[in-house]
């Protein structure tokens, strides 16, 4: 049987030697546990973590995957699925789902029903409370700051008998920031697993009554149409329309210069009205990143306003050209209702009532799956990273490192140590050790991270199970038995050569490829091109009005590319494995989002089409 490499068989890129030590011990494979760890199948979650972790950034993976697991394993007592074990290998995150032993499943059923029942019966109220909790967490995060320590304790602290020097506040602030991030990551999954459960319940019912129903049809029947996740993009469109209405187009000539652009608008007639709407949109909708919120380098709209202004300028151009920039919401709803009605009509008797109940539940619970993303990944993490950068810059000013954002090369517990080092040096009136210790160490780590980045991750490790049935894995990551076989190079060939992936959004389109591996390249995308990416982020919304189809390396039916393409009525093929490395910008593609295939129409004869699995390093 074909297998993926064992972790120990993967070559360490030159210059990355000693990489294990830049991450906490519990995140890397252990020599002493080799036998157990090699017996498990691990898949790479490059959907959420497509690039190598800097040490501090493991926080996102740790909090997210830990909290995902706790809801399966501890809160909801999901009968057949615990959480997911995770490790970092060569800088990338690998996951291995943990099943519930067969003999324990039955005992969990009544517990599960009771717990899940409580949520589904009180959905509206609990979700309302969720919003209060999450926004409260973010608001508290916003109050945290990391000012430079004063040269001396203020006089009022002397007279009030405070008895503390303020350093405790710095340590508390850091601890509290980490705690608040952890808190919202717990909240993140409070409803997420439920949304998936309701979806999967309906999914499995559909597969029972319509054995070969395309996954896409099921997705269409429960997917929200008007969602908060699309709100930031919708705000930009409204701003573009208002700009056209007010005749402000000439002031969007150079949106890279944010100050000049906003200044010119302010001086123009009607500009104050536009700016008022702009300011209103910023909070909270510009707490939106061009990445996915999991990396310290993610760029947020409210910090980098040239990004939303650039999108607005592009929308203005399209409105002036007479294009319709708003999503065809009514048509999408009509098509969704048609699909629901037609499937329903194919059922008889009790099955219709079951269909209505399960679809109704999924349609109630599922939109959270799409909407939560704004509150946690974008808004919470946007504030979090801003605060972390503030701390990093304060310590940079204290001489701890040479680049303002170098804190990211420390683990979060090392940051705690460095802070104590800082306050100790400050407290005793001596120089802290850090400025002599960290710059050299950070340079070494930077070298390792850069070296790790030169290799793409293996899609999976060790021997896959004969079939992959765990529903979350299939749904969230698109990791299916067929997908794994594709990675191993044993999948069905695509007629005429090409790539196979998930049929994630229907339709067939031909066009020129634009390969984008970094959000910074988005400005290169031209009207009508086919976006080819490792993975897309929700904040790439404005691009979806421009492109004609999407091809991604990673992701399933419910990946962001799939959801957004269905919203925009664009074909999408997700989870091709190697689309972004096989396809070159400018090549002509035929994307069939109904069949899940991508053909390169003008591939040079000598261009070997390396299908999924091309980077799998598979061992026979």
């Amino acid at each position, binding site marked *: 049987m074909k297998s993926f490499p064992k972790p120990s068989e993967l070559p360490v890129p030159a210059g990355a030697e000693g990489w294990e030590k830049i991450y906490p011990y519990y995140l890397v494979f252990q020599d002493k546990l080799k036998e157990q760890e090699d017996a498990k199948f691990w898949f790479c979650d490059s959907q959420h973590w497509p690039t190598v972790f800097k040490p501090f950034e493991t926080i996102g993976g740790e909090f997210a995957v830990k909290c995902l697991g706790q809801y399966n394993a501890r809160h909801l007592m999901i009968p057949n699925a615990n959480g997911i074990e995770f490790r970092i290998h060569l800088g990338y995150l690998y996951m291995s789902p943990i099943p519930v032993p067969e003999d324990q499943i039955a005992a969990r059923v009544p517990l599960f029903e009771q717990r899940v029942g409580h949520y589904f*019966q009180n959905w*509206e109220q609990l979700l309302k409370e969720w919003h209060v909790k999450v926004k409260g967490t973010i608001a508290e995060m916003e109050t945290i700051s990391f000012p430079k320590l004063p040269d001396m304790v203020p006089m009022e602290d002397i007279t009030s008998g405070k008895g503390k020097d303020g350093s405790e506040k710095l340590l508390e602030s850091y601890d509290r920031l980490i705690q608040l991030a952890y808190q919202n990551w717990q909240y993140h999954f409070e409803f997420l697993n439920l949304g998936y459960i309701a979806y999967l319940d309906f999914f499995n019912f559909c597969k029972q009554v319509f054995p070969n129903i395309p996954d896409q049809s099921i997705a269409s029947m429960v997917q929200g149409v008007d969602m908060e996740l699309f709100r930031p993009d919708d705000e930009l469109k409204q701003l573009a329309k208002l700009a056209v209405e007010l005749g402000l187009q000439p002031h969007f000539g150079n949106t890279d210069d944010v100050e000049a652009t906003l200044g010119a608008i302010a001086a123009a007639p009607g500009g104050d009205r536009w700016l008022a709407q702009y300011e209103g949109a910023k909070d909270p909708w510009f707490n939106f990143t061009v990445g996915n919120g999991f990396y310290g380098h993610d760029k947020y709209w409210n910090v980098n306003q040239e990004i939303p202004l650039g999108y607005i300028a592009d929308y203005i151009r399209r409105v002036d050209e007479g294009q319709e920039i708003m999503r065809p919401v009514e048509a999408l709803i009509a098509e969704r209702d048609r699909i629901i009605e*037609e499937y329903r009509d194919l059922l008889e008797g009790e099955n219709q009532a079951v269909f209505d109940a399960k679809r109704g539940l999924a349609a109630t619970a599922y939109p959270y799956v799409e909407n939560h993303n704004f509150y946690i990944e974008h808004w919470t993490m946007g504030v979090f990273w801003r605060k972390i950068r503030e701390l990093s810059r304060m310590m940079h000013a204290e001489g701890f490192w040479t680049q303002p954002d170098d804190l990211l090369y420390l683990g979060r517990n090392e940051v705690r140590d460095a802070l104590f080092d800082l306050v100790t040096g400050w407290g005793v009136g001596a120089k802290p050790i850090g400025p002599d210790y960290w710059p050299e160490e950070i340079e070494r780590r930077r070298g390792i991270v850069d070296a790790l980045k030169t290799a793409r991750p293996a899609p999976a490790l060790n021997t896959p199970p004969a079939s992959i049935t765990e529903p979350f894995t299939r749904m969230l990551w698109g990791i299916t038995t067929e997908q794994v076989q594709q990675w191993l190079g044993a999948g069905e060939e695509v007629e005429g050569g090409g790539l196979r992936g998930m049929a994630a959004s229907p339709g067939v389109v031909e066009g020129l490829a634009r390969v984008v591996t970094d959000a910074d390249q988005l400005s290169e995308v031209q009207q009508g091109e086919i976006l080819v990416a490792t993975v897309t982020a929700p904040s790439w919304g404005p691009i979806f009005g421009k492109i004609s189809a999407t091809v991604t390396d990673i992701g399933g039916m419910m990946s962001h590319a799939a959801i957004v393409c269905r919203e925009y009525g664009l074909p999408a093929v997700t989870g091709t494995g190697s689309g972004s490395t096989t396809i070159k910008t400018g090549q002509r593609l035929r994307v069939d989002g109904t069949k899940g295939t991508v053909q390169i129409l003008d591939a040079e004869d000598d261009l070997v089409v390396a299908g999924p699995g091309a980077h799998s390093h598979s061992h026979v």
Partner: protein
Amino acid sequence: MHSNDYVQFFDGGIEPKLENLGGKGASLVTMTSAGMPVPPGFVVTTAQFDAFMDEAGITAKIHELLAGLDPEDTRQVDQVSAAIREDICSRPVPEALRSMTIAAYESLMARFDAPVPVAVRSSATAEDLPDASFAYQQDTYLWLDGVKAVTDHIRQCWASLYTSRAIIYRLKNSIPNEGLSMAVVVQKMVNSKVSGVAITMDPTNGDRSKITIDSSYGVGEMVVSGQVTPDNIVLDKVTLAVVSEHLGDKHAELVPDAGAKGLVEREVDDERRGRRSLTDAELTAVAQMAKRAEKHYKCPQDIEWALDADLPDGENLLLLQSRPETVHSSKPAPVTAPQPVVTGGYFSGLSTPALKPTA
């Protein structure tokens, strides 16, 4: 040309009445107006038959001849039958009626680049009788070219009302001869370049959300007889996405040959053999037509269809037959009641009424 009391086109927009069009004619008009693309044609109505018989003035004599017949005396029945049919075929059709039929035929031919062969089929008005086989006792004439052959065979259809078989059947079932009439269908012969069947379900598991299509080159007979393996495609009925497809070998085809007035067998070249016999657009069209048929008849259908080489792309898909799918659709649906929680699947019992959201 417009329909009138004597000639009605399938797509002429006139409400189909059994007493005017006969069973077959009425069904063709109904299917056409339901958006199902039956091979184009027209019906020579019972009014024309009645007017012809009035003008000929032979009805009373026919009743007389039939009155004393013994159904067991086949020699006598044969003689009477031959005499009546000879009488019908030798009388002139009134010029006004004749010219209407000729105009209708020419109007039908005008839909094609060159004249095409037609079929002339009798369409009885008595098909609602308990024994439906009665309907099929009249004649059908295939591969007819030119106006003379058509008008001659219309008259032969009329005469077929008095074949020995028909006379004996009526005698034995005490069906009166008064008020007998006959409509005649004139319909384009299908020049089938690709044909097949479509079932509006998945016959392997009874899944009603699928459409299963078998498709091969030429007319469907080689598929039915098992001489070629057709392409087999399963589509989702709601989204029309292809769920699975298997290409058949399709090494030979039977195609209509106007010269030979019938079908000839040909080898299929490698290029056509190796690819699917339907384009994506044709596949979608077949599936949509099958869906329409199911909706029209309100139960799963087993249809026969063909792509006609004489008609332009987009208008060349024809429905040859649609009948209820009886083998599989009588099976119970795969799930009849809410499943218990966690039966090998996932959370099947979740949305029992107790767990509905409060919203």
